């Protein structure tokens, strides 16, 4: 909230900080917070030293005579207060309430308060002195062996400057410290240090104090007592619009003059503004209502906003200047309401008043963009401006939003809703009959009471009474609002019990408010009683009858209801934003949307939280050594539950690319990186980076990924991000993500899916994809498939049965695992891309495919041609053909790894210019069009399936648990048709990693290797194939039988292994065992293999190994 303050303050603090206590604004009430609240000090102050002591103040009216403070006997006269003296960085405070805020103090002694404010205000008797307002501290001679300090304040200093004679009696506070000698000395040392540092702040203090009416008022009379002279000609300070347009109410009736006199007297004896000492009269004077011209100043003092202003007197002007001429949503909203804020007050019918209101609201919206502007602030600020200058109102508004009404005006208004719940439960507790009545007649209390709290009774009660409530509110804190509210209900209890619906309920209260000035006991015979107004009665009931409602009660109740309220708001926000996602979102199920919502914001919050933790860690490191371990722990754990809640206010809604990666990693297993550290954040070998709690040990330049799986970083993800980022702002909103996913996952139309994928790679949008694009696409296909897919390829199975049963190839297919199969599909895809690509005829149609066949490349195009034929037939549904033996090397949809290279080698001999396809010549630009791409995809069963279902299903939303780190490691396990490879057990460990390559660097390498190695491998393969075929001819019939038996098992759901030769001998009963073992095996394999880091040698090796294995099985 006080972002600016806090940062300034923290800077300052690192310089001054001696005790090493962190003053980080933790949301759980730390001792510093309690201390700050007790004395209404800025967030930068922390309790450094404290000591039990006795404050001695001169007796009333004795101030005129100079006293000899050094005389011990003088200490016996006057008021004595026992309490605690506290020292913080910039303040010395005294309170009669025995709370302790040192880190060594017990929690109860820090948080248990008595007295009126219960720890949220300058309660009790005492003072809150800025150190810079201390002119001198003397150590007095004392009879006892105790320390006695005489603090001389700068009270009236300005006068003294001008006329020594007018202030013969500077304010002197005598404090006797009660503690061990050591304690006292430590305290005094601290004080000395503080005083020295505070000297530079004197200017700020004088500047602010000079603008206060009390200075003017006292100086004015001080001089006019003597002879009317120079000082009286000074313009009175700005005391709000009231000074120009009259203050509300009848000054005579309010006995304004008498109040002024009382205050003047009080201030003469007890100091003014910054140096005022609180004695019981102070509280009484506030209870009877503040005089017009001092009202603003006392509000400022009691709310503590004065101390903020000391800290940075020019902040208001700076805020306005810095943002001059800028526009914002908040400003638009403010403008709408300027003419409608207390419009009945003449000051707000004028440009002057409206101008002030505008400036204060706008300046605050810049100071605290998280709050910005909330309706009701206009009313509150308008009310303040009648009694305060703009700067004063600005700082009071800060204190209101941050401390006194936390969360009231926030984006979600959670504070308002929470306090309504608190109020309701207080009503239930204190007025059970009325509560029962409300419940039974279905009257919702908050409908009535919400505006009371939100606008501090300002537009519920007549203004003059609302100000009286404010007077006490600023001194005693938020509990006043509750006390007044309860008193209103109690006083009107009888009538409210007659009201049976909201309408009547509201009208009873409306009538009551309009008659607050009338006598509470009009029929009473006692004239004194008759003179008591309804408002006075209200105050009495509020503060006497409900004196049991303390800040402690409120805090307790808030804590109790907080979770429910936040959850409500979050559900509401979720429901609303999901509903408002637009037509595209309809393609996804409601559950999916809910899941996406949670996931989207979950990622953002987690990241935000991590950033904060890292930030804290940095801060902590800076301060290092001094912090006690307990402080560190409590600081962090205190913050954690508070962060990442939608309901607590504005939250990030924009997802950058890094967050997007993390988001994807949670919903798609292909987006999880293969190596513990993603390529972008370079390998630092720290496996622990998987876990959030290791963050402290991580280097700060690396963004950690929290507890979730570390995301990969692949070109495909970048493209997806760019594509979804429709506004080209480099961030995604939930809307973008949902729309994007709706297109990928929501369509059941394979054609749409294909064109969507095509568009991803059509960088310039000209409907063509060039060579680079084709290779990128292929990489992406491998990237996406490297962990397999959730859904089986059902359509393909029967066909494969036929195939497998009919030829030796079948055996190869069975041995082979799915990733290899996909790999081969992809390499076949590349090959065909280059074959079909045409620089001259960019708009080749699918229909051309037959004619395209005749354009086939060189080399073994015969075979391919027929393959292609086959593939096309298959698409048409006439997939009855069994591959002819001589086709062993290149079935389009089932090519084994061993075959692939030979295919590729023939068509893509990259490093063999002699055999080069023209398409591969870099000087020969080529591209494929969408129709071509579509045809090529449909030509391959695997790819077809990929686009039909697998791609969409690779995003796992609500229908399946999000991919976890372990589940991402089960590869290809669920694919029905082909052998799992990965899970196949020891017989084929090497191929298991075939398709799994580190993203970003390895894929292209693999492709290249396939191409080059293929040349060399091809011959070997061919030889084996021939032999294999002979073998097959012998045993074909036999194999077929076995095949038919085994097949159904393979396709049972979850039957995630299949038909390699070894496996087929495994009986169904044993497979359960294998199923369990499989995962283990997978993970261990994956781990050991390092997911195939070196594309070059490994690619070749793997291929060899694969083919050798083929051999082993066969022979």
């Amino acid at each position, binding site marked *: 909230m006080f972002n600016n303050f806090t940062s300034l303050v923290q800077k300052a603090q690192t310089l001054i900080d001696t005790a090493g206590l962190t003053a980080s604004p933790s949301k759980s009430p730390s001792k510093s917070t309690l201390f700050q609240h007790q004395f209404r000090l800025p967030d930068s102050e922390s309790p450094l030293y404290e000591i039990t002591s006795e404050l001695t103040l001169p007796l009333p009216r004795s101030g005129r005579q100079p006293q000899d403070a050094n005389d011990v006997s003088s200490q016996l006269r006057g008021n004595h207060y026992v309490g605690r003296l506290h020292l913080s960085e910039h303040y010395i405070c005294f309170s009669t309430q025995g709370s302790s805020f040192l880190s060594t103090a017990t929690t109860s002694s820090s948080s248990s308060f008595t007295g009126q404010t219960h720890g949220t205000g300058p309660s009790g008797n005492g003072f809150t002195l800025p150190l810079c307002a201390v002119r001198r501290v003397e150590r007095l001679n004392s009879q006892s062996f105790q320390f006695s300090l005489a603090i001389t304040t700068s009270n009236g200093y300005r006068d003294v400057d001008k006329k020594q004679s007018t202030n013969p009696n500077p304010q002197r506070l005598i404090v006797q410290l009660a503690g061990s000698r050591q304690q006292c000395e430590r305290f005094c040392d601290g004080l000395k240090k503080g005083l020295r540092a505070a000297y530079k702040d004197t200017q700020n203090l004088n500047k602010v104090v000079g603008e206060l009416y009390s200075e003017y008022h006292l100086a004015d009379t001080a001089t006019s007592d003597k002879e009317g002279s120079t000082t009286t000609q000074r313009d009175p300070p700005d005391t709000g619009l009231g000074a120009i347009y009259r203050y509300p109410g009848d000054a005579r009736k309010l006995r304004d003059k008498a109040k002024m006199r009382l205050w003047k007297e009080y201030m003469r004896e007890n100091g003014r503004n910054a140096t005022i000492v609180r004695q019981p009269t102070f509280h009484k004077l506030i209870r009877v209502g503040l005089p017009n011209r001092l009202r603003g100043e006392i509000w400022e003092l009691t709310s503590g906003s004065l101390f903020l202003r000391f800290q940075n007197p020019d902040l208001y002007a700076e805020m306005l200047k810095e943002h001059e001429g800028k526009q914002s949503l908040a400003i638009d909203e403010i403008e709408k309401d300027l003419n*409608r804020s*207390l419009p009945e007050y003449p000051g707000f019918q004028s440009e002057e008043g409206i101008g002030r209101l505008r400036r204060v609201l706008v300046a605050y919206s810049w100071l605290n963009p998280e709050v910005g502007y*909330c*309706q009701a602030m206009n009313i509150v600020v308008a009310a303040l401006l009648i009694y305060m200058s703009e700067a004063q109102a600005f700082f009071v508004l800060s204190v209101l939003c941050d401390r006194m009404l936390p969360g009231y005006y926030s984006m979600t208004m959670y504070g308002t809703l929470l306090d309504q719940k608190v109020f309701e439960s207080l009503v239930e507790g204190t007025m059970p009959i009325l509560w029962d009545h409300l419940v039974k007649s279905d009257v919702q209390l908050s409908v009535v009471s919400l505006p009371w709290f939100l606008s501090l009774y300002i537009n519920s009660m007549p203004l003059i009474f609302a100000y009286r409530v404010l007077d006490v509110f600023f001194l005693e804190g938020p509990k006043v609002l509750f006390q007044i509210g309860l008193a209103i209900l109690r006083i009107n209890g009888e009538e409210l019990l007659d009201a049976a*619906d909201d309408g009547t309920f*509201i009208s009873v209260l409306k*009538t009551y408010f309009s008659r607050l000035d009338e006598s509470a006991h009009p029929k009473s015979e006692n004239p004194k009683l008759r003179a008591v107004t309804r408002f006075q009665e209200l105050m009495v009931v509020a503060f006497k009858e409900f004196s049991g409602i303390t800040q402690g009660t409120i805090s307790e109740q808030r804590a109790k209801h907080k979770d429910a309220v936040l959850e409500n708001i979050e559900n*509401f926000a979720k429901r609303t934003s999901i509903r408002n996602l637009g037509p595209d979102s309809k393609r996804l199920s409601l559950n999916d949307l809910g899941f996406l919502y949670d996931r989207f914001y979950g990622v953002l919050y987690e990241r935000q939280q991590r950033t904060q933790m890292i930030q804290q860690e940095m801060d902590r490191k800076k301060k290092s050594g001094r912090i006690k371990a307990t402080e560190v722990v409590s600081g962090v754990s205190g913050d954690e539950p508070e962060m990442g809640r939608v309901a607590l206010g504005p939250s990030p809604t924009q997802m950058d690319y890094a967050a997007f990666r993390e988001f994807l990693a949670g919903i798609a297993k292909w987006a999880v990186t293969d190596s513990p550290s993603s390529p972008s954040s370079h390998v630092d070998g720290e496996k622990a980076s998987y876990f959030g709690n290791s963050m402290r040990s991580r280097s700060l330049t690396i963004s950690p990924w929290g507890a979730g799986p570390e995301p990969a970083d692949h070109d495909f993800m970048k493209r997806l991000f760019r594509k979804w980022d429709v506004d080209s702002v480099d961030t995604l909103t939930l809307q973008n993500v949902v729309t994007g996913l709706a297109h990928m996952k929501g369509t059941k139309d394979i054609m749409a899916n294909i064109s969507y994928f095509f568009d991803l790679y059509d960088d310039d949008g000209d409907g063509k994809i060039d060579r680079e694009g084709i290779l990128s696409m292929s990489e992406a296909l491998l990237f996406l498939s490297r962990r397999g897919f959730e859904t089986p390829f059902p359509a393909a199975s029967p066909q494969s049965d036929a195939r497998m049963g009919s030829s030796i190839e079948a055996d190869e297919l069975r041995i082979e695992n799915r990733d290899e199969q996909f790999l081969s599909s992809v390499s076949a895809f590349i090959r065909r891309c280059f074959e079909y690509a045409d620089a001259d005829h960019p708009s080749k149609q699918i229909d051309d495919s037959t004619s395209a066949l005749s354009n086939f490349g060189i080399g073994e195009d015969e075979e391919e041609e027929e393959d292609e034929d086959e593939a096309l037939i298959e698409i048409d549904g006439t997939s009855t053909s069994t591959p002819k033996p001589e086709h062993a090397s290149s079935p389009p949809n089932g090519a084994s790894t061993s075959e692939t290279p030979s295919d590729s080698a023939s068509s893509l001999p990259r490093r063999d210019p002699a055999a080069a396809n023209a398409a591969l010549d870099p000087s020969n630009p080529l591209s494929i069009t969408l129709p071509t791409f579509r045809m090529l995809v449909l030509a391959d069963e695997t790819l077809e399936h990929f686009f039909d279902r697998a791609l969409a299903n690779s995003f796992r939303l609500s229908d399946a648990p999000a991919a976890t780190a372990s589940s991402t490691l089960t590869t290809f396990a669920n694919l029905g048709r082909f052998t799992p490879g990965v899970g196949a057990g020891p017989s084929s460990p090497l191929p298991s990693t075939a398709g799994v390559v580190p993203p970003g660097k390895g894929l292209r390498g693999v492709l290249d290797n396939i191409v080059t190695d293929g040349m060399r491998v091809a011959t070997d393969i061919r030889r084996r194939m021939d032999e294999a075929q002979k073998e097959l001819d012998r045993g074909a019939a036999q194999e077929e039988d076995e095949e038919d038996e085994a097949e159904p098992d393979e396709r049972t759901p979850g039957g995630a292994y299949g038909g390699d030769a070894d496996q087929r001998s495994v009986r169904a009963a044993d497979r359960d065992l294998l199923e369990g073992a499989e995962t283990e095996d997978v993970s261990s394999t994956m781990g050991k293999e390092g997911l195939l880091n070196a594309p070059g040698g490994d690619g070749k090796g793997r291929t060899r190994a694969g083919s050798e294995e083929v051999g082993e099985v066969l022979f």
Partner: protein
Amino acid sequence: MAESTGTPTPRPSSSVKLVLLGEAAVGKSSLVMRFVNNDFQENKEPTIGAAFLTQKCNLPNRTIKFEIWDTAGQERFASLAPMYYRNAQAALVVYDITKPQSLTKAQHWVAELQRQASPGIVIALVGNKADLASPGSFPAPGDDADGVEANADAEQDESDARKVPTREAKAYAEEEGLLFYETSAKTGQYVAEVFTAIAHAIPESSLKGPRGVGGQTNLGRDDGARVNLAGPRETGPKEGCAC
């Protein structure tokens, strides 16, 4: 409000809880003010939380007493809205015909009401500030198809502040089964008509008694609940003060 506790009228009188929703400064409060006081105020204080007003509406065979909840329009107040539309039998979702964004917001409200409010709630979509549209395009009542056509033609007018074509809003209203009007709180055009149309559209079955408690709490959903609620309401006053 004192008279709200059921002064006997010759015709059967029933209470209807009506809630106004819509973006900030589209003129919700002004519509109510026009309907209740036949008055228009240029600078109305923004509604904090919600304002409550009542007004009777005489139909040929009965009198409807509207209990109007006029809500705050600022976005962040949206989370308070459920408190106000709870048990509402009718809703006026208001947008500003000069601000397309306000129609989007109105559509969000309609969706919210359809999903979260009482089933059977009567919703009227109201485009306010029709006086800002050029005279030629001033709309006919929502149910007049000819007027809409004429109006669509006039939209080209340069001096027209209108940004939301009547046709668009009307098509949406029809699709969602909403009453539709374009009003001007300033001139009073069609304001009373909206409320009358709502009064007509409230199903007889959901009107319960003059005090509105039954109607508010039941909406004809659950007769048992109504009986339960009626009991304490009558005995309540006799129990004496809670204090």
